[in-house]
Every structure is written in structure tokens, then in C-alpha cells.
């Protein structure tokens, strides 16, 4: 799930500095579309690079198969982070067929540093979630800064819930009720997409897929959403010129 670095920006609200206090003055560009100025914020390249390796380490689902991990690749930090998570499978995954390219001592040192950093990040998130209200979390600079440093898997779902303020929206019973309404016109497309998207995640597949349940519930609640936006755009003609 990657959000575009192009950030929507209304000229009325001057929030040029909202990207974060520490950011080097990024070159700013504006584009005008339909009476609204949109600000183009350039990503800070070295920063993005660090983040990618961080991502690979944090997100098991994006992790390449072990056999593909080459010595020196950023994915190596996966090992250290796994043990930091206390994942029971870390030992078995660190099997002899993938020797770490570093000397054992250096490898251990790096692992230790990474465990420390990981724990610190966890702690910082926990304390931040208790000090920043969900309603303000999305705009808070502290939160943005921490988000860019990466969210440890152990607290990631809590962070999602906190930052989106999902709890406040929750109305007891509504989800079950929406689920009971069953299939929607887009259900077939959703099933096809699920089959294509989650080959590596059997729990998400099949007719009972929770992905299908959640999307159907949503479309039952908000029927005017175009699930197949690409198809819509095509039939609308805006994509088929040329």
C-alpha cells in the first residue's frame, strides 16, 4: 500500500510546512487544476531508500523468498528483525542454505543494534498512541515523522486503527448487518481480483475470503462506489483515446 508522494494541496490553507519540521526545504511546485492549486512535493531520495529496506524488513508479506536474498541485499535485515519480533520461526528460517555474508560477530552486532532500534520504535509508538488523540494523529508532525521511520509489525495494526481513527467510526452491530446483505454487483470482479492478488496468502482466498466479506459489506453500505474504476474510465472514453 503505497501512497503517492504527490500531495493534494489547497492554496487557501497554507500548510506548506506540514510535511515535517525536519525536512530540508523540498523544492515545491504547484499545478493548477480546476481552480485549485496542488502542491508537488519531491521525495527526499536517500530517505526513501532507507525506508525501502526498512519496509522489506518490516513487512513479511512483501518479503522475497529466502532463496532470492542475495548477500548484501537490504532484505538481510529481515533476519535480525524477525528475531526481534520473537518470531518462533526465526531459527528455522535462518537455515544453513542461506549463510549470512557477514562474519558471525559483525552479524550479531548488527542484529543487536537492529533489535534495539526495533524495540525503541515499538516503545515510541506505544507512548505516542497514548499521548496523541486519534482525531489529531493524522495531522501531528510527531506521528508523520515516526510513520516515515517505519512501524514495527507488532504494533502496526494498532497504529492503523489509531491513525485512521477507526474505533470512533465503529458502530456496534452494523458490520454484521452489512455482511448479512450478501453479494453485490461487483462481487464477481472482487473474487477474480482476490484470486490474482493473494496467491501467497491462502487464508485470504476462496469464496469465504474475508477480503470479499469486507468489500461486500462496504459496497452494501456505500453503493455508489465504482469498484472497477478502470472499466468505468474505459467506458467513459477518457482512457481510450489514441
Amino acid at each position, binding site marked *: *500500500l*503505497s*501512497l*503517492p508522494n*504527490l500531495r*493534494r494541496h489547497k492554496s487557501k490553507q497554507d500548510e506548506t510546512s506540514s510535511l515535517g519540521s525536519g525536512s530540508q526545504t523540498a523544492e515545491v*511546485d504547484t*499545478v493548477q*487544476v*480546476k481552480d*485549485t492549486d*496542488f502542491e*508537488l512535493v*519531491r521525495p527526499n531520495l536517500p530517505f526513501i531508500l532507507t525506508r525501502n529496506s526498512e519496509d522489506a524488513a518490516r513487512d513479511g*508479506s512483501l518479503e522475497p523468498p529466502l532463496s532470492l536474498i542475495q548477500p548484501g541485499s537490504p532484505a538481510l535485515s529481515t533476519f535480525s528483525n524477525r528475531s526481534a519480533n520473537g518470531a518462533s520461526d526465526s531459527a528455522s528460517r535462518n537455515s544453513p542454505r542461506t549463510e549470512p555474508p557477514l562474519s558471525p560477530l559483525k552479524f550479531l552486532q548488527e542484529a543487536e543494534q537492529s533489535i534495539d532500534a526495533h524495540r525503541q520504535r515499538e516503545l515510541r509508538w506505544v507512548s505516542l498512541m497514548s499521548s496523541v488523540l486519534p482525531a489529531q494523529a*493524522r495531522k501531528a508532525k510527531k506521528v508523520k515523522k515516526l510513520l516515515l521511520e517505519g512501524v514495527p*509489525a507488532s504494533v*502496526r*495494526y494498532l497504529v*492503523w*486503527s489509531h491513525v*485512521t*481513527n*477507526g*474505533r470512533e*467510526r*465503529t458502530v456496534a452491530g452494523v*458490520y454484521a448487518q452489512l455482511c448479512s446483505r450478501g453479494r453485490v454487483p461487483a462481487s464477481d470482479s*472482487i473474487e477474480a*481480483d*482476490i484470486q*490474482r*492478488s493473494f496467491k501467497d*496468502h491462502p487464508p*485470504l482466498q476462496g469464496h469465504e475470503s*474475508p*477480503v470479499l466479506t*469486507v*468489500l461486500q*459489506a*462496504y459496497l452494501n*453500505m*456505500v453503493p*455508489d*462506489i*465504482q*469498484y*472497477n*474504476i*478502470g*472499466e*468505468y*474510465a*474505459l467506458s*467513459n472514453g*477518457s*482512457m*481510450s*483515446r*489514441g
Partner: protein
Amino acid sequence: MVACRGANIMPIGLTRIVGQLLLQGPEEEVFWIFVSLMDTYLRPYFSTNNSQLEVDATLFSRALENNDSQLAKRMLMDMSIPPEIICTDWYV
């Protein structure tokens, strides 16, 4: 030909988003997180007018012009590939 390419872009964005969330937490909470994400960020992309996508496509072509004007000229002018074709896959 462009239309063909367009037809191959299958919008699996919402499925992917929900799937990623479900890998993190329980279903009902994922639903409300998703509701919040849709309301806050995503609904303009899935509404019947594609205005948000147009905005992003315009920003993308501007960014391309700034960073690689040669490629931008070749793609946007000479081959007249609409930037939406490329962006749909990223944003949706």
C-alpha cells in the same frame, strides 16, 4: 493499442488494500479502518467523475517534465500517451 493496454489494467487496488489490512488485524476492525481510509483519502478516486485521478495524472506529467523532459516529450507529446493510463495502475 492504448485501449488494449487500458483493458489490461485491472483495478485491484481496493482488494489489495483490504487484503493488506486483514493481514494485520481482525475483520470487523479492518472494516472500520477501511471505511475511514475511503472517506479520508480514497473515495474521490472511485467516484463517478474521475477528478482525483485527473489531478494526480496532471501532477505526474508535471513531475515527469521536471525530471526527464526528454522522456516526457516523447511519451506525452510524440506518442501522445495520456498520463492517466500510467497512473491508474499506481493510484487505484
